[in-house]
C-alpha cells in the first residue's frame, strides 16, 4: 500500500508542478500590478515604481520566463515571494490557511456525513414521500449558488435576531471584539466564536450536503436491487439490515471518487463564504489579490489549491482502498 501511494504521489507531484507553473504564467501574463502602483497618490516616479516592481519580481518589463525562473527558484526553496506590500507570502498564507480550515472543516464534515445519511435514506425510501421531499430539496439547493445561499441565510438570521430581540446569529468576521473579556471570560469568547461560525458553517454544509445527497442516493439505488442484497435477504436478513450490512458499504465505494470532485467545489465555496461573511481567509485574500494584480499571492494560492485538489484525490484513493478489498489487492 505504501509503495503504491508513493507512486501515486510522484505522479501527482508532476501534475502539481505543471499546474502550478501554468497558474503562475497565466497570472503573470494577465495581471497588471503596475496599474495599482500608478494609482497611488501621490503618484510615485516611474523609476521608483520600476525598482519596487523589480524588487517584488512583479515588473512586467522583465520577460515572463525570467520572472517565472526567479519565482520557481524561490518556490523550490519553499519561498513564495512577497506580497504587493512587501510582506512575505508564506507567513500570511499559513495564517490564512488556518482561518479557512476553521471555517471549512466543520461545514464540510457536517455536509458530507448528513448528505450520505440523507441520500442513503432517500434511496431506501425510493419513490415515497420522504424520497421525493429529499430529492426535491437537493435539487433546489443545488440550483442556489453559494453567494445567493449565504445572502438568504443572512436575511433569515436577521429576521430571527429581530424576533428574538438578541443577536442569536452573527455573520461578520470570526469574533466580536472584546467578547473574551465579558462576564463569562474565555468561555464567552468561545461561545462568541461558535456564534460567528454558525451561519458560514451552515452555508458550507448545505452546499456540500446537496451534492452528497444526490451522489449517495444514486449509488445506493444502484445497490438496492443488487444480487448480493438479495442473497443477504435469502440468508434471512431483514430488508433494512441487509441494506445496512451489505448495501451501504458497497454504495459508499464510488463516493470516494466524488469526494475528490467535491473538494474543488469546496475551495470555490470557501471564496464566496469568506468574502460574504468577512472571514480573512485564503479565498478573500485571493479575490482581493486578483483585483490588485498581486501575482505572487495569486500564484501561491493557486499552488495551494492544486495541492489540495491532488491531496483530496490521494485521500479518496486511500479511503477507497480501505472500503474496497478489490482495489486493495490490485494495489498490493
Amino acid at each position, binding site marked *: 500500500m505504501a509503495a503504491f501511494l508513493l507512486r501515486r504521489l510522484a505522479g501527482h507531484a508532476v*501534475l*502539481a508542478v*505543471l*499546474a502550478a507553473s*501554468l*497558474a503562475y504564467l*497565466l*497570472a503573470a501574463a*494577465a*495581471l497588471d500590478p503596475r496599474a495599482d502602483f500608478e494609482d497611488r497618490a501621490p503618484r510615485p516616479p516611474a523609476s521608483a515604481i520600476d525598482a519596487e516592481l523589480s524588487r517584488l519580481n512583479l515588473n512586467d518589463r522583465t520577460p515572463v520566463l525570467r520572472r517565472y525562473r526567479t519565482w520557481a527558484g524561490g518556490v523550490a526553496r519553499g519561498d513564495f515571494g512577497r506580497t504587493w506590500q512587501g510582506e512575505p507570502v508564506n507567513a500570511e498564507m499559513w495564517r490564512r490557511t488556518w482561518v479557512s480550515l476553521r471555517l471549512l472543516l466543520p461545514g464540510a464534515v457536517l455536509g458530507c456525513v448528513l448528505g450520505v445519511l440523507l441520500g442513503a435514506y432517500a434511496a431506501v425510501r425510493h419513490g415515497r414521500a420522504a424520497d421525493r421531499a429529499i430529492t426535491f430539496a437537493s*435539487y*433546489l439547493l*443545488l*440550483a*442556489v*449558488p453559494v*453567494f*445567493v445561499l449565504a*445572502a*438568504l441565510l*443572512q*436575511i433569515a438570521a*436577521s429576521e430571527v435576531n429581530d424576533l428574538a430581540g438578541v443577536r442569536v446569529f452573527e455573520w461578520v468576521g470570526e469574533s466580536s471584539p472584546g467578547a473574551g473579556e465579558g462576564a463569562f471570560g474565555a468561555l464567552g469568547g468561545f461561545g462568541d466564536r461558535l456564534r460567528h461560525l454558525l451561519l458560514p458553517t451552515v452555508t458550507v454544509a448545505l452546499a456540500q450536503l446537496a*451534492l452528497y445527497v*444526490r*451522489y449517495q*442516493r*444514486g*449509488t445506493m*439505488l*444502484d445497490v*438496492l*436491487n443488487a444480487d448480493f442484497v438479495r442473497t443477504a435477504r435469502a440468508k434471512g436478513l431483514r430488508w433494512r439490515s441487509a441494506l445496512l450490512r451489505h448495501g451501504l458499504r458497497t454504495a459508499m465505494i464510488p463516493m470516494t*471518487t*466524488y469526494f*475528490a*470532485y467535491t*473538494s*474543488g*467545489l469546496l*475551495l*470555490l465555496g470557501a471564496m*464566496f463564504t469568506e*468574502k*460574504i461573511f468577512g472571514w480573512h481567509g485564503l479565498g478573500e485574500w*485571493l*479575490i482581493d489579490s*486578483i*483585483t490588485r*494584480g498581486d501575482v505572487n499571492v*495569486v500564484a501561491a*494560492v*493557486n499552488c495551494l*489549491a*492544486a495541492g489540495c*485538489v*491532488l491531496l*483530496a*484525490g490521494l485521500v*479518496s484513493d486511500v479511503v477507497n482502498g480501505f472500503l474496497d478489498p478489490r482495489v486493495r489487492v490490485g494495489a498490493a
Partner: protein
Amino acid sequence: MTTPAAAARTQSQGDASPAPAADGTGRPLSRARAGARRVLASRRAAAGLALLGLLALLAVAGPFVSPWRWDDTDLTAFRAPPSSEHWFGTTQSGRDVFALSVRGLRRSLAIGLCVAVLSTGLAAAVGTVAGFAGGWTGRCLMWGVDVLLVLPSFLVVAVLSPLLGGRWPLLVPLLAAFLWMVTARVVRAMTVSLREREYVLAARFLGVGAPRVIVRHILPHLASLLVVDASLNVSVAIVTESGLSYFGFGVRPPDVSLGTIIADGRGTATTHPWLFGFAAALLVLVVLAVNLLGDGLRDVLDPTSSGPAPRTGGRVRRRARPGNARAHEYGTGPA
C-alpha cells in the same frame, strides 16, 4: 480471452441488451419524434423544458413589455419598492430592476448556451480522437486534460479576466476553454468501450475505415450523452459566469448580468429585498430548469442510466449516475 459464452446464454432474450429500449426506433426523423415523446413523458424533463421556455420567453419578450429600458434612470424613484410603475422596484440610482433583471437573464442564458455548445463540441472532438486513436496520441491528450483539471477552473478564469476588458463575448471562449475537461474524459471512456463493441469490430472486419466507423457507429451512440452533458454544462456556465460577475471578474458595469445585480443588491438585502431577490430568484430558476432538463434527458437518453420503462423478467437494474451534481464541478481532481 473468451467471454464465458454460457453467461450470455443465461440472459433472457428480452433483457440481454439494455440499450434497445433507450435506442432509436424508426428512421432519423421519427426517431427524433420518438425521442421528443419520451422527453415529454419524463416529468422532470418536461418541467425543466417548460420552465426554461418561460424564462427564455421572459428574456426575449421582457424588453418589449416593460416601459423602461435597462439603462433608463427614473429620477423620481430611488430605491422604490415594486409598484405598478416599476414592477420589480428601482435601484439606488433609479434604474428599473425588472428591465435590469431581464437584461441580466438574457446575458446569462446567452453565455450559458454558447459556452455549453462550444465546450461540449471541444470535449467531443478531443474525447473521440483520444479514445479511438489510443496509444500516444490518446495518452498525451488525456495528460493535458489532467493538468487542466488540477487547476480550479474558476480561479483561472478569474485570473485571466483582466484580459477581457469588460467585453462579455470574450468570456464565452474563456469559460468554454476551462469547462470541457470532465466531459472529454467521459467521452473518451465511452469511445474506448464502444471501440470494442462487436458491431464496431464487425464494421472494421468488413473493411470500413476509421473515420467512417467514428461517424457511423460511434458518434450516434455518443449523441445522447453529448446532449445531456451540453445541457448540464449550460448550468455550470451560468453559475460560473454569475459567480465571476458577482466578484467583478465577468460582466462588468455598465453592462449587467444576474451576478452583478445580486452583488449590488446583497448589501441591502435585508432592508431592500427587491434589489437582490428578483435577480436571485431568476438565477435559481434558470439553473433549476436546466438541471431538471439535463437530468430528465439523462434518464431518457443515457443508456447507462435506467430507462423509465420496466422490462420483463422483473430484474430492473438502476444505473443512476449522480444527476446534476456535474453541474457543480468547477475545480475537479484527476479522476
